[in-house]
C-alpha cells in the first residue's frame, strides 16, 4: 500500500466517521450528566463488610454459573433436531419473501430460519411490493416509494438491488431506479434487463381500491420504456402475475364475485390468461382464457409452460372462509394449447387455508411452493417433490391474512 493510498484511506475513514457521527446531534442525548447514585458512604469508600462479602458472592455466582452450564445442557437436551437433507446440487439456498408487508425476510430454505430482515430504507410507507431473484445471492425488490408530492400525484415505486452474503445476511442494498406506478412484479431478462409489471391508475388510493379502471403495464425498469399494456376491468381482482424471462409472455389470473359484495364460492368467476405484446391494449377480460381457475401461476423462462396450483373437483364450499376439505394440484400446463402436461403434486387441505405462492429459480429448474408456513420444492427436471423446513410462525398477528388462522405467516410473493 503506497503512502498516497494510505492518505486516501485515512481521508475516507474520517469522512465515514463524520457521516456516521453526524446522525447524533447535541439535542439527541441527555442534556445533563446522569445523577449520582448511592449514599455518601457508597461514594466515598465502601463498608469493610461489603469489601469482603462482594468478592465471595461473586466467586460463588461464577461457580454456580459454571456448574449450571455443565449440567443443564444434559438435563434439558431433547433428541437432537435433524434438518432434512440439503438441496440437490444447484438449487438456491436463500429465498426472500414478505412474511410481513413491511419487512422482507431472507430465509435459509435448508433450515427454515430467517437470516435477515430488510426494511425499505427510504419509503414513507415502508411497504415492499415485489421481489425477483437475479442469482442465488442477488435479488431485486420493489418498494412503494410514495407519490411525487400530494395525494393527486402518481405513485412512485423504488427498485433496489440486494446482495446477500453466503451466510444469508445483507451485504449491500442499492437503489437502482425510480419507476412511476405500483411495481407489482419484476423479472430479469436473459440479457440482464430488469422488466416489471405495474398497475397504473389515475388518482389511485394507496389501498387496493381503484377510482378508475387501472392498466397493467410491462416496463423496462431501467429506461422506463413501456413494452406492452392492457386495461383491467375494475371489477376484476388480479390474483397472480408472472412474466417470462424474455418479457414476451405474461400470465395473469383474475377473479371476481358475480354478485355485488358476494363471497360465495359458487358465485366466484375465475380465469387465467396468457398475454403477449401483440394483444397489447385489449382488455384482459376480453382475451381467451387458458383455464377457468385463478390459482397462483408462474411461467417457465421461455413462456411455453405455466405452473399453476388448481383446485380439483367441484367446489361446494359456501364461502372462502369455509372449513371445507378440498383437493389441490400443482399442474404444468402448455400455454399454447391449455393441455395439462403433468400433475407435479397433489394434496388435500382446508379451503380457507388455501393461499399458496409459487416461485421459480432463475434457471427455471426448481419450483418453490409455500402455503402458510409450509414450504416445498419441485425439481422440474426429475419431477421430484421435497418438503422443506417450515417457516417460523409470527409471534404476533400484525398483518394476519383473513384466510389463515391467527399467528400464521402471511405471504403474498417470494423469490429464490
Amino acid at each position, binding site marked *: 500500500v503506497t503512502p498516497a493510498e494510505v492518505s486516501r484511506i485515512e481521508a475516507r475513514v474520517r469522512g465515514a*466517521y463524520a457521516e456516521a*457521527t453526524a446522525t447524533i446531534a447535541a439535542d439527541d*442525548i441527555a442534556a445533563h*450528566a446522569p445523577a449520582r447514585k448511592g449514599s455518601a458512604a457508597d461514594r*466515598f469508600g465502601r463498608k469493610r463488610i461489603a469489601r469482603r462479602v462482594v468478592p465471595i458472592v461473586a466467586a460463588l455466582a461464577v461457580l454456580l454459573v459454571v456448574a449450571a452450564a455443565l449440567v443443564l445442557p444434559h438435563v434439558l437436551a431433547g433428541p437432537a433436531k435433524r434438518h432434512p437433507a440439503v438441496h440437490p446440487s444447484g438449487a438456491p439456498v436463500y429465498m426472500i419473501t414478505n412474511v410481513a408487508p413491511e419487512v422482507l425476510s431472507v430465509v435459509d430454505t435448508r433450515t427454515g430460519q430467517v437470516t435477515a430482515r430488510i426494511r425499505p430504507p427510504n419509503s414513507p410507507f415502508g411497504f415492499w411490493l415485489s421481489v425477483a431473484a437475479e442469482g442465488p445471492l442477488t435479488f431485486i425488490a420493489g418498494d412503494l416509494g410514495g407519490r411525487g408530492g400530494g395525494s393527486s400525484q402518481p405513485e412512485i415505486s423504488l427498485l433496489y438491488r440486494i446482495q446477500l452474503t453466503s451466510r444469508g445476511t445483507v451485504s449491500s442494498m442499492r437503489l437502482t431506479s425510480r419507476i412511476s406506478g405500483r411495481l407489482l412484479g419484476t423479472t430479469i431478462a436473459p440479457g440482464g434487463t430488469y422488466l416489471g409489471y405495474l398497475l397504473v391508475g389515475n388518482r389511485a388510493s394507496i389501498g387496493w381500491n381503484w377510482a378508475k379502471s387501472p392498466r397493467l403495464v410491462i416496463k423496462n425498469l431501467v429506461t422506463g420504456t413501456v413494452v406492452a399494456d392492457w386495461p383491467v376491468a375494475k371489477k376484476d381482482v388480479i390474483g397472480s402475475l408472472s412474466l417470462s424471462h424474455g418479457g414476451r409472455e405474461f400470465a395473469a389470473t383474475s377473479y371476481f364475485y358475480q354478485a355485488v359484495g358476494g363471497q360465495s364460492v359458487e358465485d366466484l368467476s375465475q380465469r387465467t390468461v396468457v398475454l403477449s405484446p401483440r394483444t397489447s391494449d385489449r382488455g384482459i377480460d376480453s382475451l381467451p382464457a387458458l383455464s377457468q381457475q385463478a390459482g397462483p401461476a408462474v411461467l417457465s423462462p421461455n413462456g411455453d409452460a405455466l405452473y399453476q396450483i388448481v383446485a380439483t373437483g367441484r367446489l361446494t364450499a359456501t364461502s372462502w372462509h369455509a372449513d371445507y376439505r378440498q383437493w389441490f394440484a400443482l399442474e404444468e400446463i402448455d400455454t399454447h394449447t391449455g393441455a395439462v402436461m403433468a400433475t407435479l403434486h397433489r394434496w388435500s387441505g382446508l379451503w380457507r387455508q388455501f393461499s399458496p405462492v409459487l416461485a421459480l429459480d432463475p434457471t427455471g429448474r426448481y419450483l418453490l411452493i409455500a402455503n402458510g408456513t409450509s414450504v416445498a420444492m419441485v425439481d422440474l427436471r426429475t419431477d421430484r417433490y421435497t418438503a422443506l423446513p417450515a417457516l417460523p410462525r409470527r409471534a404476533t398477528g400484525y398483518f394476519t391474512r383473513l384466510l389463515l388462522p391467527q399467528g400464521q405467516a402471511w405471504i403474498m410473493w417470494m423469490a429464490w
Partner: protein
Amino acid sequence: MTVGAADASHPRRGGTAAAHESAGAPADAASAHRQVDPLLPDEGDRLVADLYSDYGLRLVRAALLLVGDKPTAEDVVQEAFIGLYRALNRLTSPDKALAYLRVSVVNGCRSVHRARRLYLQRPAAVDQPVWSAESAAIAKEDARLTLQAIARLPRRSREVLALRYYLDLSDAEIAKALGISRGTVSSTASRALTALARELKEEDEL
C-alpha cells in the same frame, strides 16, 4: 470549556483544557490513591457535569462508531459517567477524569459486544447498526461501505481507528486508553489501514 475556568482556581488542576486532554488510566489512579485527597462531593459533581457538557456528545459519537447504534452508545457513555462518580475518590487528579472516561467507554463497548454475541443468536429484532445496509441513518453509500469494511476488522483495530481518526488522540493517548503499547497502536493502525485499502479497492472494483 466551562471547566477550564474552575480548574484555574483549583490547586490540584492544570487549569487548561489541554491538561484535561492528557490521558490517564484507572490503574494510574489506583497506584496514587494514598497520595491525594479525594474530591469533595460538590467538586466532584461539578467536574462530572462539566466533563459531560464538554465531552458527552463526542464520547457518545465515538461509542456509536464502536457499538453501531445510538441508544446503546448513549447507555455506554451514561454508565461511564456513573462509574466516574464512583471513581472520583480514587482519581489522583481531576485531569485524569477524561482519560478514565475514555477507558470506561471502550470497556463498555467491549461488554456490549460480548452481550450481543448471545443476543444476536436469537432472531429477535434489534436496532440495526449504523453501518448496516438496513440502516437508513447513513445517506452516502461510500461512507456505509467504509463503515462496513471497518466493522469487519478485528476489535482492537476498530478501537484504534475510532480513537485515532474520530477522537484525534495521539498514539500515546490511545495506548493508555486501550492498555497496550505505543508500538502496538502504530502496528495495529498500519495493518488496519492496509486491510481497509485492500478491501475497499475490491469493493470499488465490483
